[in-house]
């Protein structure tokens, strides 16, 4: 049996449409089977409410008198992009305020606008004959704007990974706070409620699809950036009238030591046009899998440790290496549920109709890595030979090596060249000042190290964070194979 969009819309108009959420659909199909479910159910609503960094809004302020053509402008001290006509701008949610970065950003500005709060606009211009005003400092609310259009180039990831951290330090990432030694796990995505997971071949989703966006009505403009359908990481590009939206579904957020972003609520209605769609929308958390990825490795291709289902993730624990680790959702499952329920109510109340897309989302795009024209340098390319002393060496000999070899760092090892510590010229000076004569008393035993295949930029960042000027290079067995100092990085 098949249905058309027109038939479904006719039922919505009469108030007869049967609408359920994607979570309810799982149970319905389980009980009645896909054939009956396809006959009975007209629309399945989906929802997600999570941090979506590729979000922002186009604003138009109208003209000042005398007119200004912005060269630079900021909203509540958050710089916004100005590369269009005189008084248009784009405020992006990850741009941080100049005066309180990591605390307030573009997402917060959008939340305040949608809440009806006043926002401060400061702008400057190089002035032209037609736009003579050089500077402006004013306050406005969303009602003062001609257009406020939420326009997000990448939203509603079909699924996302589950992040863990194998390193020995707490990491602060866009996937939240990750404790060392696999201390916790963070995941994102709404599982069985996830919009794109309910129609993974995009039979009903594409350009022009009317959706729930930020508490108002929005539209899909096409595939999102980094859309990667083959491995089920599809994304959508969306827009909608910010003036209709609600702060409840657009929230500015800050991730410690990462930066700002914005939670966006998105729901896509899936029309049950045929039995196939009934089957697709019945996908459960158990069937939806994602990868557990080690964010302890700071490279593009991070190791995938295992596959995990959203059922396991939503249970609050995942198993890894035989241990149970607590896991958190980065997106709000409660919010996702509310989005799907609200969209369901809109359709039931005859306030929201479904439409076929002008063109469905592509199934063949691939997500390529960045082309890097300059060759990446690794530690092995820049390291030099380490000056090595054994633990029982006389301090005087260490001091002589420092002078003769014109170096500041002596790596201390055992007879097999296994790393035991490091001594700097400063440590020697200090030893003399404090009358210490035993090398063992002045060795720094907890040494921060690097390895041959680490990119230079990562090693440099570690030196900067730890405020040190050299890293011994070690192999897998902790054997010293060189040293890299800040001098090589200059």
């Amino acid at each position, binding site marked *: 049996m098949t249905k058309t969009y027109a038939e479904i819309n006719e039922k919505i108009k009469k108030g007869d449409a049967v609408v359920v959420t994607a979570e309810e659909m799982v149970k319905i199909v389980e009980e009645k089977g896909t054939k009956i479910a396809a006959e009975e159910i007209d629309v399945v609503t989906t929802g997600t409410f999570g941090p979506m960094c590729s979000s922002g809004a186009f604003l138009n302020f109208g003209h000042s008198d005398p007119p200004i053509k912005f060269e630079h402008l900021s909203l509540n001290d958050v710089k916004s992009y100005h590369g269009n006509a005189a008084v248009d701008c784009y405020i992006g949610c990850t741009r941080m305020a100049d005066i309180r970065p990591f605390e307030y950003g573009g997402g917060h500005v959008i939340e305040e606008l949608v809440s009806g709060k006043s926002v401060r606009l400061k702008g400057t211009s190089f002035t032209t004959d037609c736009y003579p005003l050089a500077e402006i400092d004013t306050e406005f609310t969303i009602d003062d704007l001609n257009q406020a259009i939420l326009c997000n180039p990448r939203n509603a990831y079909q699924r996302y990974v589950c992040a863990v951290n194998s390193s020995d330090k707490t990491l602060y990432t866009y996937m939240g*706070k990750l404790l060392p030694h696999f201390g916790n796990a963070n995941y994102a995505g709404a599982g069985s409620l996830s919009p794109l997971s309910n129609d993974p071949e995009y039979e009903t989703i594409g350009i022009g699809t009317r959706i729930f966006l930020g508490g108002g009505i929005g539209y899909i403009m096409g595939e999102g950036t980094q859309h990667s359908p083959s491995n089920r990481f599809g994304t959508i590009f969306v827009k909608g009238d910010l003036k209709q939206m609600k702060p409840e579904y657009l929230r500015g957020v800050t991730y410690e030591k990462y930066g700002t972003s914005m*939670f966006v609520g998105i729901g896509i209605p899936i029309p049950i046009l045929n039995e196939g769609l009934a089957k697709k929308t019945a996908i459960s958390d158990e069937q939806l899998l994602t990868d557990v990825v080690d964010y302890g490795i700071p490279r593009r291709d991070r190791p995938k440790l295992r596959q995990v289902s959203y059922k396991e993730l939503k249970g609050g624990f995942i198993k890894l290496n035989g241990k149970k680790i*607590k896991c958190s*959702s980065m*997106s*709000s*499952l409660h*919010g996702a549920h509310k989005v799907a329920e609200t969209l369901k109510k809109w359709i039931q109340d005859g306030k929201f109709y479904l439409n076929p897309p002008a063109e469905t989302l592509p199934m063949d795009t691939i997500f390529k890595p960045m082309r890097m024209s300059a060759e990446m340098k690794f530690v092995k390319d820049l390291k030099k030979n380490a000056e090595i002393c054994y633990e029982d060496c006389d301090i005087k000999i260490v001091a002589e090596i420092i002078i003769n070899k014109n170096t500041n760092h002596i790596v201390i090892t055992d007879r097999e060249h296994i790393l035991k510590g490091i001594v700097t010229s400063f440590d020697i000076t200090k030893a003399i000042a404090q009358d210490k004569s035993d090398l063992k008393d002045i060795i720094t035993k907890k040494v921060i190290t690097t390895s041959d295949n680490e990119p230079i930029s990562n090693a440099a960042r570690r030196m900067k964070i730890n405020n040190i000027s050299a890293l011994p290079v070690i192999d897998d067995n902790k054997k010293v194979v060189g040293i890299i100092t800040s001098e090589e990085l200059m």
Partner: protein
Amino acid sequence: MTIINITLPFGMIKDLDDYSAIVNEILKHEISFNILKFSTSSSGITMLLDIPDEKIETITESLKKNNVIVNKKGRVIIDQEKCIDCGACTSLCPTDALSTDSEFKLVFSEEKCMGCLLCLDSCPRHAIEENF
């Protein structure tokens, strides 16, 4: 119960008697308390103690007399207005004081919180604060 953070500065404890003296100082007030955390570092010994509210003044006073550094410490509180129920904090909580209910709404149990404050910087909405 109130949590206090006490530090016995490095060098203060040279032998077991020094340690006993301080413990006896607390015990003479005839109270029971919980040691939530015990750690040693180069600055000395640090302990998180959970102490009955009515005894807090006397104990703080007598500890300070013995050169112990006492800082009042908070459990956390959740600002429900700011919270968006993401649950990012839950995996950091070692005692399940922060968890989500069957509808994935955040639930906070004050009794379970031991003031480790691991969750404090995990909240994207700054909805978690230390409550002194």
